[in-house]
């Protein structure tokens, strides 16, 4: 009987994180990058909740932490989108390859 252990969740989380990271590194569209960051944050949430269940079930540390992560993620999406819109208004583009201003 294959039992679902902590390891399964951790591996799932790692894979999801990797997919998100891949997207962050390789997508051109700024919105896509933002989405992929959400994926990475979710991967972390899986970890947190899984640890909460298997290691400290009574303390809810993991769950509360993940609530804060969700909060931050929401805020991040809001501000991130605002920035993207502002940039788009100036440059008429959301292609990250067009933006290399960090050079200066």
């Amino acid at each position, binding site marked *: 009987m294959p039992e679902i252990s902590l390891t399964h969740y951790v591996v799932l989380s790692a894979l999801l994180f990797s997919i998100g990271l891949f997207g962050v590194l390789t997508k051109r569209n700024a919105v896509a990058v933002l989405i992929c960051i959400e994926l990475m944050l979710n991967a972390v949430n899986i970890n947190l909740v899984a640890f909460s269940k298997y290691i400290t079930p009574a303390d809810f540390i993991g769950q509360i932490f993940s609530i804060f992560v969700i909060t931050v993620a929401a805020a991040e999406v809001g501000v991130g989108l605002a920035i*993207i819109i502002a940039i788009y208004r100036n440059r008429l583009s959301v292609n990250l390859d067009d933006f290399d201003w960090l050079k200066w």
Partner: protein
Amino acid sequence: MESSIYSVVAFYGLALTILGAATLVVFVRNIVHSVLFLAVTFVAMAGLFLLLDADFIAAVQVLVYAGAVCIMVVFGIMLIQRADMKATNLFNKQLLAGGGLVALVVALCAVLAGRTAWTELVTAQEVPANTVQFIGTLLLSKYVIPFEVAALLLLVALVGAIVIARDEEVKANARD
């Protein structure tokens, strides 16, 4: 420890959905489709949280991510993209380097996951049945300061997002 066959099946099913949808998020060429698969991922993840006895998180997940975030992203896309949504979500030149890096991350994670003695960490304790009550109590007692700070953060993000995204003309009008 709970180990019904349903939970095993449910886990694999949800895990496959999550990974599959996430992969599609990254690989589809239309940004709107990406967002759609993102919503799928989020919903599947809510199921996963139920499996992990985290009812409240699961609810929040559906409300915040699947609901608010996805809708917001779609609005964002509507504001900034052309009418034609084909080939709006392409890869850049870093594809190979990114892939290599991700492979390394995966490999490292695999090695670490294999090496870590998880069983020593795991307790036999059960998750209390009513999670919402505990979380509510904790958030307003032990974690009240982070909670308030988070509230403040949201407020600042709200104001900030408006300020950043607001149009110059709108600003000029507002001044008049």
